[in-house]
């Protein structure tokens, strides 16, 4: 079954966005940390899933949900259950949902480079690749991430997604991934 799914995914590479008429579902979790962990598991297994904003009736505050192709519901639920990460709820959707920002903005400060994703900014020293500042955001893990990451080398530090728990941490992770590409 697992092999079958992997073969199917070989033929479904490309954009993770779904086409009109695709049947999609949402995996709902009690917290953003659970969403981040489940996404990591499913992507590790090669599933075509993406993190999006929940529809209005599911919003509780600092939220993310996982969008997936409904046709793969059984396999996805099985994997998550095996890993002890079963979702709180699985619901089908047909409406447009909010897409997280995926555009980053770069600003060059000479010896320093800043990358902004949504409301989060990551700044490194280009000479040493050291993270020198983190700015923006409003969730409680932003100051925590700053404490954990500032002073560390970009390539040696744990990723914001591994340390954080909120949508702001997710946004910082996008800036971090873009920065990694930039320094490579």
């Amino acid at each position, binding site marked *: 079954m697992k092999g079958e799914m992997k073969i199917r995914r070989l033929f479904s590479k490309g954009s993770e966005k779904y086409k009109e008429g695709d049947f999609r579902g949402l995996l709902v979790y009690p917290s953003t940390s659970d969403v981040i962990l489940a996404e990591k598991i499913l992507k590790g297994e090669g599933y075509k899933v993406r993190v999006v904003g929940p529809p209005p009736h599911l*919003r509780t505050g600092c939220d993310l949900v996982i969008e997936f192709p409904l046709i793969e519901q059984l396999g996805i639920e099985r994997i998550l259950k095996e890993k002890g990460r079963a979702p709180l709820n699985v619901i089908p959707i047909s409406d447009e949902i909010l897409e997280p920002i995926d555009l980053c903005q770069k600003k060059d*400060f000479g010896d320093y480079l800043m990358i902004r994703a*949504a409301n989060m900014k990551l700044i490194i020293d280009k000479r040493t690749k050291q993270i020198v500042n983190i700015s923006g955001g409003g969730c409680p893990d932003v*100051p925590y991430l700053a404490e954990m990451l500032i002073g560390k080398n970009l390539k040696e530090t744990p990723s914001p997604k591994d340390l954080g728990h909120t949508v702001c941490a997710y946004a910082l992770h996008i800036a971090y991934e873009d920065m990694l590409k930039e320094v490579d």
Partner: protein
Amino acid sequence: MLLLAGTIPDPGLPLIYGRVRIKDDRLFIGERPFYLHRGTPSMIGTAAIVCHSLGLEEPYCVIAGDIGKGDGSKLIYNYLAENIHTLKPTVCSFHYIMPDLMLHHKLFCALKNIEAKPFLVADAGYMYIAKMSGCADFYDLFTPDLGELAFLADENSPHPFYTRGFIFHRPDEVEDFITKAYKTKGTPRFLLVKGHTDFICENGRVMKTIDEPNIEALECIGGTGDTITGMVAGLIYGGHQPLDACYISAMANRIAGSLANPTPATQVMDVIQRIPEALKTLRKEHFNGRQENIKTHRDG
């Protein structure tokens, strides 16, 4: 009373409340010290500096440890909801608190039911939930940056993460965002938009802009928006009219930034240390002559 509330990134820190003082560049609530780092401590520290400069009583703080799991935020919401009517603050500033609709609603109901409504400032996560709840116009002042302003102007967005419009914005679009945010009830009466140019607004109209001194590196320094939020709360508590308080805060932040001579690697502590000097620079123009008619928020 000036009441300041927000989380501290220390997972073991319980709910702590009380008057705050600054000693040796650290904050103390009772005997417990906290470093003046970015986030809630920056906001509290600058508010405490302003209160000290104006000869006011020390701010009352409510803090708890939270690294994004929402546990400390829950303690703060619940404490405030249960005690706000006895604390009777005249100015409140809510800061790094996990957005949570249910808990916000509980606190919102408590705030609605107190006898004299305080002047309510919101920034960071608490501003996100105040807007998402649809009750932004119950509050008095938000202090967003440009990305957060675009979020306030987007009635469908529950978080700045989902707001695309601002990232390649043009400066002339900022006023459109301000108007839209106000018309869609995404903002309170007063707004201080922090950025390359600061916009001070009332009822969706830009009343003043500030763009000098322009210190490019400040954009990189985490916590330099928190300092503005702390200053403006302290100044309003001291009796300054909200538009004046916004102007002084934005100017003092720029002056303090300029005095710190920062690079993108400078930490906010270096800016906070210059705020007393920056306030002194502005004092002659704005502090004197206003003390007689500035009793509103201090005395309730």
